Each structure stands twice: as C-alpha cells, then as structure tokens.
C-alpha cells in the first residue's frame, strides 16, 4: 500500500475535511480527556498523519523520556501497519521518521520561553523546520494564559499548528459555555477542541469546537484494544 492510500484511509482525515490538516498555521488545538483514556494515543496519530504528509512535527513531552515517547509512535504505527496490512512497513517508518523531533522536559523545568528558545535553535540552524508542535503533558489546572498567548504569537510567526493534550477530571462540571473548566478560560486561544469520552465498548471522539465532521452521522472513536481511531457510521 502506498503512502497516499494510508493518508486517505486514515479516519483522522475526516476531521480535517478537505484541508490537509486539522489545524492551520498559528492555530491551537486541544485534546481533552481524563487520565488514561487515550490523549497521547490520539495526539500521536495526528502527528503520524502529519508526518505521512511530509510535514515536520516537534513532539514536546513533559514527563516521558524520549525512548518512551518514541515507543508510542512505534506502537501506534505498528498497529496501523497491521490494521491496513502495509507491506514494507519498516521502510515507510524509516521514511517518515525524519519528520519527527522529540523534545522532552521535566515538568518543573519547562517554560514557554525555554521551548521557544529551543525551537529557534532548531529553526535558525536549519536543523529541523517544524510545521506542527505537540505539547503533551502541560498542566491546564491553572492555564498559563500569558505564556499561551506568547506561544500563539510565536506559532503565528513560525507558521505552526499547535496541539495540546489537556487532562480533565472525572466528576467536574463543565464551565459555562459547556467546555471543560481547564480550557474554558483560554478558550479564545483555541480554534479546535476535541474530547475523548469512554463509552461502553470504545472511546468516543467528540468535537467540542472547530474541526469538521461532514455529517452528523460520522462518528469517530478509539478502539480500546489498539487505541486507533476508527470511523463509525451509525
């Protein structure tokens, strides 16, 4: 199977509609869920989708070492390869790998200016020109509005789409406006928000804001066995 087919058959494409990617340059997207539901799995699939398109992704992980983050990619890619029965999966993996750069920080050592400094290092030296930034593990308990606004500015300047994984809590009421508390205060900065909700036999992917699901009948869900996104036509 060719890369092209892989892109087309990826249910994540549904969220992007006609466009190449869900987020455009300078836009923020959030994936909200409770701990352990599959935020990282979904965000890695979004990253792989971008990598297949040949777009460079910087994956910032705030509590996992590089090897573990890499393992997420390997696992998810392995599942996709098996699911779609890709021949020469290894060669394809080698081909897309250069489009990814993992950066890990300790949670306490992380700050947006520090991240910007590192990214600038990469861009100026022409080492890696990211088109997508993924920030996995940043706490939104008290959303750092100022820092996020700064990052938004940086993202616009450098034409980056930025995805965040945002942890919510089990028994919390949504804020006024229906969005989870964690994102409600900084809602204006986010163009897209998706939530993951565990249901009986799968994890539903709901669109809270932005992104397109062409018809109301299209539903996306994560298969709990492989954590892969699948489209569900109900």
């Amino acid at each position, binding site marked *: 199977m060719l890369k092209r087919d892989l892109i087309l058959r990826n249910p994540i494409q549904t969220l992007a509609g006609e466009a190449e990617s869900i987020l455009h340059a300078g836009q923020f997207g959030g994936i909200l869920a409770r701990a352990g539901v599959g935020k990282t799995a979904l965000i890695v699939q979004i990253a792989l989708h971008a990598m297949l398109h040949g777009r460079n992704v910087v994956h910032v992980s705030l509590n996992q070492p*590089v090897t573990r983050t890499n393992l997420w990619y390997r696992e998810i890619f392995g599942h996709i390869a098996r699911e779609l029965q890709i021949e020469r999966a290894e060669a394809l993996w080698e081909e897309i*790998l250069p489009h990814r*750069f993992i950066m*890990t920080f300790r949670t306490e050592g*992380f700050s947006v200016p520090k991240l910007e400094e590192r990214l600038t290092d990469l861009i100026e*030296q022409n*080492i890696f020109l990211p088109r997508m930034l993924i920030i996995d593990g940043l706490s939104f308990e008290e959303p750092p509005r100022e820092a996020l606004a700064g990052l938004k500015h940086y993202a616009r300047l450098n034409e980056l789409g930025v995805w965040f994984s945002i942890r919510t809590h089990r028994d919390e009421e949504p804020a006024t406006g229906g969005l989870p508390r964690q994102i409600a205060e900084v809602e204006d900065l986010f163009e897209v928000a998706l939530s993951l909700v565990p249901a009986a036999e799968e994890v539903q992917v709901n669109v809270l804001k932005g992104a397109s699901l062409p018809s109301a009948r299209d539903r996306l869900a994560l298969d709990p066995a492989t954590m892969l996104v699948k489209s569900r036509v109900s």
Partner: protein
Amino acid sequence: MKKDIRFVRNIGISAHIDSGKTTLTERILFYTQRIHAMHDVKGKDGVGAFMDSMELERERGITIASAATFCEWKGHEINIIDTPGHVDFTIEVERSLRVLDGAILVLCGVGGVQSQSITVDQQMRRYRVPCLAFINKLDRSGANPQRVLDQLRQRLGHTPVALQIPIGLEADFQGVVDLVRMKALYFDGDKGQAVRVEEIPEALRETARIQREALIDAASLFSDELTEAILEERPVSEEMILAALRRGTLERRITPVLLGSAYKNKGVQPLLDAVCALLPCPADIENEALDMDRGEAPVRLSSNADDPLVALAFKLEDRSYGQLTYVRVYQGTLAKGETIVNVRTGRKIKVGRVVRMHSDQMEEIDSIPAGYIGALFGIDCASGDTFVSPGLSLTMTSMFVPAPVISLAISPKNHKSEIGLSKALNRFAKEDPTFRTHTNPETGETIISGMGELHLEVYVERIQREYGAEVTVGAPRVAYRETITQRAEFDYLHKKQTGGSGQYGRVAGWMEPLAEGDFVFENQVVGGAIPTQFIPACEKGFRECLAKGPKMEFPVTGIKIVIHDGASHPVDSSDLAFQQAARGAFHQGYFKAKPVIQEPIMKVVVETPTGFQGAVMGSLNQRRGMIVGSQDEGSFCVIEAHVPLAEMFGYSTVLRSLTQGQAQFTMEFLAYRQVPQAIAEELEKKAAAQKKNVA
C-alpha cells in the same frame, strides 16, 4: 572450596565510565582482606587500582578487560567480575553478564544516570540480571542522591527502594542511616575499616521514619508475612524486611539502593552486606543449555555439583605461561585430572591446573563446583565455548555477536614486528569475537575490524605495548555493503566450444531482496534441466560473487537467488562451466535489480550542558545525523541521534572543542541503511580514482 552454594555470589559491577566502579572494587577487595593496600585509579603512586591489570587501562583510567576475582565476606564467597564501562567494549560486558547471577549498578551521585548506564541497564535486562544500585561519590560537590533515585525511576524504569539515607552530603558527607536496622553508620579509621553503629542523629529521625515506612511499604508487596505484621501492627523484624526485599530483587521488580563514597571509604561494607542478603545465589537462577542432539531444544541445568559437567568459557587471557581460560560451571564439577569435551570442536581435553583468580594473582584449587567461577590453564579454546562431561551434547546459548562496522589496514614496520603482530592478532581475535582480522587478497594488506574507532585504537595500542610490534595503520574505513532493491530475472549461457575441452552451462532464474539474512539460494529446477550434480556448483558460483559486489566491490547482502531452468551438454558441462554460468547470471541480473550501497548507522547519544545544546545538535546535523530527540534534564540534556558511522570519525575531538570538554557521547551500531545518492556518487568517484591509481 566451600560447597554450600547458598553462600556463593557471582556478581558484576557495571556502570558508566568514571562513576568509580574500579575504586569501589578496590575497596571491596581491601575490606574483604584480599589486598592490603589501596590505590587510586589514576593514583599518584603509579601503582593504580588493583583490578586494572593491563598497563593501558591503568594509563587511561578505564577498565578494558574484565578480570574475575574472588573474595569472602561474612561467610559468603563472592566472585566479582569487573566489567568495562565503555560502550565500544560491550561484548565484554555482555559476556560477563551471561555468567553473573547479580550485579551492582554503580551510579555517580553527581552525574546520575548517564547514557552508558542506560546501555548497561538494557543489557542487564536482556539477561535478566537482578541488581542493586550504589550511588557513589556523595562526597563530591553537587551530589544529589534523590535526583539519581528519580532518574533510576524515570530514565531506566526501575522501582528504586532506598535502603539508606545520607548523613550530610558533599564535603560534609559523614555516613549513612540504615533504614532496615534504623541505625546510623559511620566509617572510622584512616581507611574506613571500622564501622561505628550509633543512634540516628536527632535531625534525621523524622526523615528516617518516613523513609523506612516507604521502604517497608515497597517490601510488603513481596511478603504476606510482612503485610500481615503491618496490618496487625506487630513489630516488623529486620529478617522479614530483608526476605521480602530479596524476593522483589530476584524478580527484578525492585532495585534496592545504597549510598556511599568509595573514594572516601564510606558505605562499602553495608553494600557488601546487601550483596550477601539481597542478591541471588547460583541456585536461585535458572540456567538453560541447548541440546545439540535434539535440534537445540532448551534443557534446564540442575546446578547440582554431582551431575554431569556443563561449563562455559567466557573469557581468555594470554599470560606469559600460556592461555588462561575463565570458566563458569553451571552444573557438575570441573576437577583437576578429569576429561572434558569441548562441544564446539568435539575434542577431548584433560584438565590440568585449576585456579581461582584474584585479578592477576592466582590460587591453585582442585575443582570448581557448579555455581562457581574459576580458571583453567593450558586449554586451547575460543571464548564462548562450552565444556561438558563426555557423553553430553549441550551448549550454552550462543551469545549475540554483532558484525564489525569499521576496519583499518595495519602493517608491521619490520620483520620482528611482523611476528609480534601476527601473535597479537591471533590472540585478540580469539578473545574478542567482535574483533576480526583478515588479509585483503588484492593488496595483501592485513585488515582489522571492530565495533568502533576506540575499539580498534585500543587494540592497536595493545599490539604496540604488549607485543612490542611497531606498526603503521591506515585511515579507518567504514564497512559499506551492497544490496538489491527489486526482483530481476537472469538467463545466462556460458559456452566455450572452440578448441580443447569445451565448457557449456546455462542458468536461468531470478534474484530478489531478502528482508532478513545475508543470502538464500533456492533450487526450483525440475526435469533435470540442470543435472543435480551441478546445482552445488551453481550455488558456489553465486556465492563467490557476494564477496565483492559488481557495483562498488562491497560485500553483497540481503539477496535471494532462485534458479528454475537451465541447460547442459552431455560432454562439455562441468562444475567449472556452471560456476562460470552462475557468475555470468549474477552480473546479468544484478544491475537490473537496482543495487544500492548501504552504510552502518550508529545510535549516538550525547550528554551536554544545556548551554551547548544548539551547538551539539548543529554538529550532529552537519554529520548527516537524524536527531531523534532531546531530553532536558535541568542543567544538562541528552540528545539522541542516528548518524552514519562514516561521519563520526574524530567526533570526540570536535565535541570536546564545541563544549569546552563538558559533553560526552556514546555510540553503538544501529542498522544498515541506504547511502544517499550524492554520497554514493562520491564513493563511486573515489573508487574509480583508486582503481586508476592501482592501474
């Protein structure tokens, strides 16, 4: 020799270079009264620490060859293998891990878990070696045991359980609090030999209480008795805690952590106590051998000294009085005067002298029972050979030996050196399976190959020092390979029927890429198109083409050849004719199969202060490196990249000047990958120029 196997410990001391393991070993030997003076690794007295028996190691302050040594502590017999810390010598590390039952992972209290520790840890995991961690150098400024504990958890994925807390740190480091016994331990005397047990200082009591609770909590997972005692609020005894910790350690589910400073003689004796209390004895470990008579089916070994013998030669050393072979006995007893069989060669050997090694001194013994490590004299074998009692046909699992990735030409400067060189090469190749040597048939040059620049450098130095051979070496060369990328058909007729005896043979079939393995030959000829007796000749013809690929004269790998048709002549066909035909067929098909050049890619891990991160990434990027990621660790960061070996020559110098000597890197072979077009063209140009020069 005592016979109770429960009191035997075969342990290794593994760690990052410079985290102080040789000093630690030295102290252990001193406290166990095997040596009577202590020296430093890079000591001013010029004697050097005891375990580094090779001159070169002494000079570089690193341990290259693992010497096995033996000592006794509180009724336990401990065999220690001092393992090398540099990644280029990992075959040595792996080989020692194979024969160990447990290990001490030494970590630097300042530097913490460094990249080499990660490699060593992975190896320990592969061989499922239970381990203790020893956080060393707590007297140094910047020492922070808590950070190292966190790193153990985060970077190595261990579940560390602290058995001690420090009393003071850095220059004020005085001793440790033993959380199991709830006592403070100080180390008195000019060499720390007297352990003084006191009450815990007031200021640390609360911390100690909390930490002890955490310790008991972790241990209770492995003992119902302990859990019950806690629930019923009965007093928890020292034995209960140790028994639970031991179970957890043996299952590799926890890593007990001890603290100290070997250099300042603090914390070594409690570590020895922990080795005896928590690490496994040989009987705790299941060892398997492969039965050669039953298709290498695994067989469990009994670790019983009365059963037939199974022993592994894991290390050879060339002494002035002949070859010394280190062996680990897994089952039975290896006794003086008995006859044993080398499974690989099938040869019978009579056991002469049996010794127990203490670094480079030795003690004569009569036998080595199961579970023990010892050495034999005057036995001709290669390392990795298995010895058994006559009648058995078992082999210890063969160890994974990676193929060498780098080579260089070496030639003696005079006749005297020629003899020394050949002796040296012969010995090194026997001792170290990753070090190989061959003669280039065209240039007549002697080529040595190994796992990295430093690997070969060390051997070149040893050739000069130990054998007094003066040699000149060529520039290091990367071991490129050729392979094909698509299927291609061939149909070749070799025919010479003019004058003299004729030659006739036709070979047809196809070649295709092979995902795993170097070469597969398949015969699908039916109906005698090629008579059966000529099929081996065809295979031989193809095989001969592999050594030197038609594209760039690099070895060809990853290729499958299938023949399905051909023709022969009743008189003119011969082995030679079909070999020629196969060669012709190979050349015919090869270029249609789109051959490419592959080069070895190394996994490079650089640790650098954060300030130099950009510069280091730049340097890797310039070297065609693909940076996998960077890991921020506060004051320093770890960068992982995949870089072609060809670009890594001299990188240590570059890195040093880029970072004011503050960064270090490790490198290991990752995979073979296709060379980019531009580089391939350059290589082709170079090869063409070389050919011209030769002509």
